[in-house]
């Protein structure tokens, strides 16, 4: 089981799911039509490290963060 959390303005409760890779996570999240428009603009972190590769293997307890477009300052 892994957890997916949505940061900032996405305003959605965390989701728990079974997933072996980020590709699995992607497939699951795309089932939610509210999320599809967010996904193309969002970056992703695993356990607070930014990632750029869908094939990374997930392990039990991993925490995936979905980061929408930013504007600090």
């Amino acid at each position: 089981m892994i957890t997916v959390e949505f940061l900032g303005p996405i305003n959605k409760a965390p989701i728990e799911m079974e997933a072996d890779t980020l590709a699995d996570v992607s497939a699951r999240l795309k089932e939610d039509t509210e999320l599809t428009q967010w996904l193309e603009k969002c970056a992703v972190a695993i356990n607070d490290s930014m990632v750029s590769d869908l094939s990374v293997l997930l392990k039990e307890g991993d925490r995936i963060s979905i980061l929408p477009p930013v504007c600090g300052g």
Partner: protein
Amino acid sequence: MELYQGSLEVKEIFGRWLDEQAASNYGAYVPFVGIIRAEDGIEALSFDIYEPILKKWFDEWQARAMERGAIVKMAHAVGDVPIHTSSYVSAVFSPKRRVALELIEEFVEDFKANAPIWKYDVKNGKRIYAEDRSTPMDGAGLLA
């Protein structure tokens, strides 16, 4: 890296950073102070911050600055920041002016692009995500 609830005490931060480095023999101190402008009828801006990733982003910048003999500083507000007050102060200290002037620009621009901070306009007490002024972070779209 310092996070504060609400507006920053700019003078306190500026002076404290100056004092902390008083004996470090840096020749240039270049702060950047961001102030909330009154525009589009907003009362305030409001900020969400994801601190663990911001901290990593900042620590990587600190390492990069140190390779050039410099250090970086940063303070940011969380929550509502009324117009004409400050939400963001960053700074570079370096032995020489060239490095300080180059680094402050790179640091502030990368901050705008990649620091995990979300901005909202506050109008009539309501928070509205500033989507049109926001930038997808490096690597965005991975799950799309």
